[in-house]
């Protein structure tokens, strides 16, 4: 029995050490919506392995899980070498750069600086609080914006055509809620109008809300970084924008479960035709249908520009540049840089993004000029290209004030929505609570 105990402890030691014999490069990546997308990335990882003769360990996580895993591992002192998640640019990198937690990627970015769009470079040129200097603390690799999708065939079943759709902000949404959805319900179809999410567990409502703010001309943070939300004029616009956002939820035009949707539930509900309209960043919704359901992709599903803002002009869009991070505490900084250098070569990333079917938009002008995007006949990719090139763009508020990232981290906008739709608060009271918390976060 003693020998058994000895063997057991040796075994534990052995397994323990093999676990510690980690790869030369650890990558935690957010899973794509299709197998093609992940395989395209895997190919690049194996290319790096072949070219360098080193080993990489690539783990894919679901959207919400990458964020949690990285945040926890960073706190525990064992972050990966390379990681990508949707939330980094919105909620974390400005703070982490300031806290001196990120690896300086200047040596990777500087040599290829000329390839990037200016806005993309700006978004990763972050201030380090420890040194007081700015540097490239993240690698920009793609960009995205929220899109509006609807089911054209269901609109027609309800007895309308696309020409009937109003072009202006509130009339557009009201039309779906007050006219199309009720018409379908009359026919016995149990369907909702707009997939208006307000959940704190998803990032989508945060992005969409900022388009609503743009539509109402509400600038929460001024370009000089000062918080404007409490100023009467801005406050009134914010209240109007929030009212417009929660209207479908209060009016039971949004599926009731939308108040608790995770990042994927909006896709699920819309794709299964439980609601007519969806607002979602990237083209993940149509692309999920491309292979298995080409008819839906080409005919039934539509991607359209946002309705005009309340002043009658096109609503400025928002763009979120997605970032790849490496940490100061990452075990293999040099390997991380060598991998990024390979990934960010236009010859590498260009074909990879095209293989994804156009879910993401490149951040390199040369790549975006490729006919794949600029002369696309694909109904969704061409609509996306138009949205990126034609519409005016407003930066997200954290560009002006890095502390605004905490607003996203605390999901303050969704909390305000929750006050209104769950607790039944008046909108102005919810905005006051929001403004107070924002002020506290931004004056830290």
């Amino acid at each position, binding site marked *: *029995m003693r020998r*058994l105990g000895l063997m*057991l402890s040796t075994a*534990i030691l052995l*397994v*323990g050490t093999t*676990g*510690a014999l980690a790869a030369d490069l650890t990558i*935690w990546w957010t*899973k794509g*919506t*299709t*197998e093609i997308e*992940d395989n395209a990335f895997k190919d690049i990882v194996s290319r790096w392995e072949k070219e360098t003769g080193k080993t990489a*360990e690539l*783990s*894919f*996580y*679901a*959207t*919400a*899980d990458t964020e949690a*895993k990285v945040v*926890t591992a960073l706190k*525990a*002192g*064992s972050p990966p070498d390379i990681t990508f998640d949707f939330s980094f640019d919105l909620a974390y990198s400005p703070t982490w750069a300031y806290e001196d937690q990120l690896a300086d990627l200047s040596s990777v970015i500087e040599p290829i600086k000329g390839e990037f769009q200016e806005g993309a470079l700006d978004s990763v040129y972050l201030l380090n609080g420890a040194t007081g200097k700015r540097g490239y603390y993240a690698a920009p690799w793609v960009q995205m914006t929220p899109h509006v999708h609807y089911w054209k065939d269901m609109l027609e079943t309800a007895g309308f055509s696309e020409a009937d759709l109003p072009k202006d902000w509130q009339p557009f949404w009201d039309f779906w809620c007050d006219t199309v959805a009720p018409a379908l319900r009359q026919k016995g179809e149990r369907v909702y109008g707009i997939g208006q999410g307000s959940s704190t567990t998803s990032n989508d409502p945060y992005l969409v809300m900022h388009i609503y703010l743009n539509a109402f001309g509400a600038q929460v943070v001024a370009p000089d970084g000062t918080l404007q939300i409490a100023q009467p004029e801005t406050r009134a616009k914010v209240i109007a924008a929030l009212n417009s956002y929660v209207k479908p939820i209060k009016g039971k035009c949004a599926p009731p479960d939308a108040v608790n949707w*995770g*990042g*994927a539930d909006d*896709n*699920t509900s819309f*794709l*299964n*035709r*439980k609601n007519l309209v969806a607002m979602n960043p990237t083209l*993940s919704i149509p692309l*999920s249908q491309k292979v298995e359901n080409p008819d839906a992709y080409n005919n039934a599903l539509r991607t359209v520009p946002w309705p005009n803002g309340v002043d009658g002009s096109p609503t400025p869009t928002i763009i979120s540049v997605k970032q790849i991070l490496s940490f100061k505490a990452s075990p293999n900084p040099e390997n991380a840089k060598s991998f990024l250098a390979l990934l960010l070569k236009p010859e590498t990333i260009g074909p990879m993004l095209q293989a994804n079917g156009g879910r993401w938009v490149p951040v390199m002008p040369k790549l975006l000029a490729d006919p794949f995007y600029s002369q696309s006949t694909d109904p969704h990719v061409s609509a996306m290209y138009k949205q990126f090139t034609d519409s005016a763009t407003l930066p997200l508020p954290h560009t002006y004030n890095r502390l605004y990232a905490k607003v996203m981290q605390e999901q303050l906008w969704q909390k305000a929505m929750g006050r209104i739709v769950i607790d039944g608060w008046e909108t102005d009271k919810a905005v006051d609570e929001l403004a107070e918390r924002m002020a506290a976060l931004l004056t830290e």
Partner: protein
Amino acid sequence: MIDTSADTAPWRLRDRLFMVGISIVLIVWSLLPIYHMVVLSLTPPREGFAGHLWPVNPTLENYVTVLTQGDYYLSKFWQQFGNSVFCAVAASAIVLVCSLMASFAISRLRPRFGPLVSYVALIAYFVPATFLAIPFYQVMNTYGLLGNQLSLILCVVAFATPYAIWVLQQNAHTLPDELDEAAKLDGATPLQMFVLIYVPLMMPTIVAVGAFALMLSWNEYLYAFLLLSDEAHFTIPVMLGQFMADDAAPWPLLMTSGVIYMLPPVAFYYLARQFQTSGMMSGSVKG
């Protein structure tokens, strides 16, 4: 209330109806979610949202997809199933070794510190596992075991062993002392007594305790989710949990994998039932 020693005389009609009523309620209550799972698993993938009461176009397509790993979400199904089996078997083996040895010492060798050990085991048995998840994660990080399946195995060992000791010890007291005395007179060492007398006589309880550890490991979600970090190392519950967070995840396939994952413990449970009702359940609460 009806008591155990109800008359053997034929029941009145009203009692009979009452019994049938309760039976129906109990069956519906217990099986509705399972039934729903099975219905979805027999539903074509695109129709998972129809909310039908029974499968309208029943198909075994989902089972074929899962068993052949025919979907991207399930591309490592068998590997992950294997991980679940490996963790469960390894955990129960270690639980059995630790708890048999400890309970033998406490109940047969009766050292002065025996009561203290059993007291400590009892305290550990009471602690809700969830409450230790945060420090456990940190401690595993310190040991360098994060992401390693061993961390999950050791977690099950930590939480199942105290219970196992408690149950084994209760049953060990029923073994006659004369056996030990006789063995001692024959010059047997404690080690021989353990291997040749104690373990064979405790077999029914060992089965019950082993089954408990197997099921604990098989079911574990929270710790598996926190401690494992690579798809290739996931157990099935973690893989199933990922469906909740994924875009456009095929739920009928999730339910199909769920049905398949449910079969081993249910089958095992009914096969080993006579052991369990005696050891596993009644042993856990005596007071």
